[in-house]
């Protein structure tokens, strides 16, 4: 395939992926908006009014970056894992496997779908947040780059989960038992500086903490961790997971007999 044909093939996969989640927007785009609104009402307004300022910001403002990023993480992951596993389950992944489209473009197409849904949900949740509190923007470049990199990272993680999944149960195990705890313990609702020293050290092993804090820096200008460390961690994970996902696809793991 020449460059032009590869571009057409990538666009075809991306459009297919975007239409897939857009067609079922009631299942994909609406729930995170409702959930986030509930978080703001309960944690932000009701409980948050009893909590003092955190790092110089009202509690409601402080949790906004984490809530946006949490929605981006879960939706990027869910989009790719469910789309890829469904393609495997219905065998329509074979439509791509019999075509001359290179494996890296198949991977990029699925990642593009996860990124599109992650960003769409991120924008929608930000819109909801604006009903409750103004959102400052400290550094647009940092906020956008962290958002995109995080979405790509969890799209890749969702892809790998989809490759290994052998049943629909397998695509919910990681989100339930790994992703959700790591997200909740990743400083979405609190500053790690509020934790005892031991738990602060434990928290530093949680990669989601770096993303949440880097994104919080982009919006609020405050962070518990170094920005350089955060970028290094995210970029490192993206590169590692991309290489691993491509290796699985090249080997045909789970999709070729």
């Amino acid at each position: 395939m020449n460059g032009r044909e590869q571009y057409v093939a990538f666009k075809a996969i991306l459009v297919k992926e975007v239409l897939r989640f857009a067609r079922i927007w009631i299942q994909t785009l609406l729930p995170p908006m409702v959930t986030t609104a509930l978080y703001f009402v309960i944690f932000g307004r009701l409980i948050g009014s009893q909590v003092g300022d955190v790092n110089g910001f009202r509690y409601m403002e402080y949790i906004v970056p984490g809530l946006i990023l949490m929605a981006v993480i879960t939706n990027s992951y869910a989009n790719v894992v469910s789309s890829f596993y469904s393609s495997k389950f219905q065998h329509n992944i074979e439509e791509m496997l019999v075509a001359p489209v290179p494996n890296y473009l198949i991977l990029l197409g699925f990642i593009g779908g996860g990124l599109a849904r992650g960003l769409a949900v991120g924008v929608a949740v930000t819109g909801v947040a604006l009903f409750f509190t103004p959102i400052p923007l400290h550094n647009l470049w940092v906020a956008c780059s962290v958002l995109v990199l995080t979405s790509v990272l969890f799209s890749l993680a969702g892809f790998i989960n989809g490759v290994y999944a052998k049943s629909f149960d397998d695509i919910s195990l990681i989100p339930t038992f790994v992703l959700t705890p790591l997200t909740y313990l990743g400083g979405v609702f609190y500053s790690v500086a509020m934790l005892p020293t031991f738990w602060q050290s434990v928290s530093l092993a949680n990669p989601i903490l770096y993303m949440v804090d880097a994104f919080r820096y982009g919006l609020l200008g405050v962070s518990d961790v170094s920005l350089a460390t955060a970028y290094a961690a995210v970029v490192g994970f993206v590169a590692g997971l991309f290489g691993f996902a491509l290796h699985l696809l090249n080997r045909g793991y789970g999709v070729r007999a």
Partner: protein
Amino acid sequence: MIPALSLRNLTKVYKNGVTALHGIDLEVAPGDFFALLGPNGAGKSTTIGIVSSLVNKTSGTVRVFGHDIDTGLAAAKACIGLVPQEFNFNIFEPVVEVVVNQAGYYGIPRRLAFERAERYLTQLGLWERRHDQARMLSGGMKRRLMIARALVHEPRLLILDEPTAGVDIEIRHSMWSFLSQINAAGTTIILTTHYLEEAERLCRNIAIIDHGRIIENTGMRQLLNRMNSHTLVLDLVNPLDAVPELPGFIASRVDDHILEVEVSRDVNINMLFTALSARGIEVGSLRNKTNRLEELFIRLVGNKEDAA
């Protein structure tokens, strides 16, 4: 002339230890309408899976119009259109999108993809249903959708794995006519089917695979000419109490009004009617007991199993 498909010493051993292919050799000429037949589990779908790169081969070589799948996989894939045995499209996608998306994976721009989708969906009687979700189609329509999808990049080699399974007789005949046109226009077709009448009617060359080995690979006519005898079923006008003596023929009585007679290939059928008339037996109608290819197929595969 470069073969449309060339398999050399192709072997497949699955992870569970089952050997599906024992080093098969096969060649399909460009422009051919080729039948690949075999009982269930013989290795047909494994062979097709390897050629279309859905199954990893264990060893051997596969060339599609000269493109080796080990060194020129993308070029080989671009030559192939696959209609698999199982429905494998996204059932929630509209019919036209199933076809247009597939064109996209081959690098065909969307506008051209729509033009081709309209052409093939119209030819296959599905254009009116283009906005329906694929799950709303009947079984026969789904089979035709997979043919339209396989043709959208205008492949030089079309592989059809049981394309008419579960399709009613009228649609099956229209599909035969369509496939004959596609073949006449220059597309090489490889067909697997359990309807042996279909293979006999459409295909010029044939390979029979059994237990992962090619046990027959020849022209359809040559194969059919090998039949030494065939069985005729005679519907009698008057009832018959016992099996009549018919010199040179082996007869058996099915019931009062039906007689089966095995006729050797070198015997003139008029001799049978002369013998029947001499015994005052009137024949209302006659037909072949089974399709000729079916009879041969059962003998070939049956003999192999007996030997095993």
